[in-house]
């Protein structure tokens, strides 16, 4: 076997799970924040005005910008805390998936209109 093949198939050392857990959970929180901010903007005229960062796009500009900021800030904080550690991935991934699914459901207008 040549050196290239050996290099290709060599197992990589196991990395701490914290980096992935931070990326995963922050994506779940960011998705949920998007749904929650969208509902708040839809319900409150003052908040809707505040969310209008770019008039041609309307409140969608602020809703998405705010949610992206929440996502990136949470990711940065979790990354700094977890990147070199192993965390309880089953718990973190379950929480992230639940947040994503709840966000997905809350974005469906008939469900969002319940709030």
């Amino acid at each position, binding site marked *: 076997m040549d050196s290239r093949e050996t290099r290709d198939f060599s197992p990589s050392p196991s990395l701490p799970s914290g980096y992935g857990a931070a990326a995963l959970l*922050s994506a779940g929180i960011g998705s949920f924040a998007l*749904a929650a901010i969208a509902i708040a903007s839809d319900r409150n005229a003052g908040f809707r005005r505040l969310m209008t960062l770019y008039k041609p*796009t309307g409140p*969608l500009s602020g809703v998405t910008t705010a949610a*992206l900021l929440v996502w990136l800030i949470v990711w940065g904080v979790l990354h700094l805390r977890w990147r070199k550690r192993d965390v309880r991935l089953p718990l973190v991934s379950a929480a992230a*998936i639940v947040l994503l699914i709840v966000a997905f459901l809350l974005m469906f207008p008939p469900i969002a209109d319940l709030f």
Partner: protein
Amino acid sequence: MDISSHALWSLVHGMGFGGLYLLACSGGLVELWRRFAPSSPAPVTARDERFVRIYFFLMAALAWLAVLTGAYMVYPWYRAIPPAGATSLSAFPQRLLLSNPSTAAWHSLGMEWKEHVAWLAPISTTMACAVLMRYGRGLRDHRHLRNAVLCFVVVAMMAAGIAGFFGAEIDDHAPIEGGKIIPIAHGG
């Protein structure tokens, strides 16, 4: 034969970035499912690893391009307010849809859902890309992480599918028009 610049951008947003993203999603899911399964008998080579990293990077770029062109180029044309006394709503798609009870739900349900749910795609795909950049073939050692990434990509694909479906239907009922006319071909 010609096309308006607004219609062309709508096409680039939906069929270009959005359509390509949806196509790429199925390939990304298959790669993650087969190659990165802990039980997979075939090893993930350095070449496979590099390929998947570039693939997910391009997927994330497509997702961002789709939502950004949608929100900041096409959507403002869609929600433009007609001037007082306007006799035709054809250049104001949102108002055109809302003016008829049989088409109003394309806005109140379709666009209201699409404009938010589509953003799950870039968030989820960027996360998947970051995880693959960091772990590469080592993702096989983290079964829960790989399964969660798969779930996020599935939801991202569903979100992009919803956005794509409503985008196409809304454009069918109230097309985005306006801007410069671009000639494509002259008739014989």
